[in-house]
């Protein structure tokens, strides 16, 4: 396949780029119905929920608790209004500590 593989990769790139590009380049925002605008504004928060669960629980497929502890650490840090980087680093740190328990 390796002769052909570069072309497959190019094909993957094209089908990935098209959905990324179409609405941004072709939509005319002014013509969208207010309800649809509202829905589009909801998308980020809904997507965040769907991205976090159930994915975070499966980062260690044998132990759901592992991801759960990491998520809890991130939640607490984020609740304290810490900077995003600090939230990320502290959850890594907590899990790194947990592996030595």
């Amino acid at each position, binding site marked *: *396949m*390796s002769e052909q*593989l*570069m072309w*497959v*990769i*190019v*094909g*993957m790139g094209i*089908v*990935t*780029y098209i*959905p*990324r*590009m*179409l*609405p*941004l*380049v072709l939509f005319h925002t002014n013509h*969208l119905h207010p*309800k649809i605008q*509202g*829905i*589009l*504004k*909801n*998308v*980020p*928060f*809904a*997507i*965040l*929920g*769907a*991205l976090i*669960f*159930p*994915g975070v629980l499966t*980062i260690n497929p044998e132990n759901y608790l592992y*991801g759960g502890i*990491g*998520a809890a*650490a*991130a*939640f607490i*840090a*984020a*609740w304290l*209004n*810490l900077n*995003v*980087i600090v*939230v*990320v*680093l*502290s*959850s*890594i740190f907590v899990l*790194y500590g947990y*592996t030595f328990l």
Partner: protein
Amino acid sequence: MMPSPAVHREETPAYWKKGVQAGLPIAIGYMPVAFTFGLLAKAAELSLFETIGMSVIVFAGASQYIALSMIVAMSGAAELILTTFIMNIRHLLMSASLKERAEDDPKWLRAIYAFFITDETFSVAATSPEKKITGSYLLGLGIVAYSCWVIFSGVGYVMGSGLPQSLQDSMGIALYAMFIALLVPAAKKSKKVIALASSAAVLNSIFSFVPTLKGGWGIILSTLIAAVSIEFFMKGDERDE
């Protein structure tokens, strides 16, 4: 350069810098993911050129992983490309949502920063406190995330295995921690945000038990159901963005 007519507009370099800073947590999160991709690509007997090429051209984590497993399983080209498409069609939603907040940049510029839309760059941009998102912010954000992704794909390929396993494991939380860090401040201020995120989370968890809805479709479906139904059932926009 013409003198800027808008009084309140910040200078472009300031936005660019903000974008770069906002991209740093993504870069940390991408490191282990890209590194592991490089490792697995080598195991799947891709060349270094093909490995870096895939990260340069596709720039989409989950579908690159799946592509590797399909290459190992000797899947056909059409199957590979179709799967990639299904995995990444969710970017349609993000692109449309971003269009709502983005400034009216020229088409060619939008066509460029559209390339950098991923789950992570979108989440960071869409939850940023600015009212309007500028092109230079999106470019700064995207380029930081992208460079990290490409470079660490190569590093993973070349180094084989370098990082201790326990550190690699714990770094797997990074992107999720970032998502949580983006969500919680908004959720503290708005019941609507809580409703949106938790309903999509529950739906996607249920969908994860349905084989055909794993990956791409599950996220699209749960996001759409949550975003549409809550728009219709919850009165008023309590968000003070």
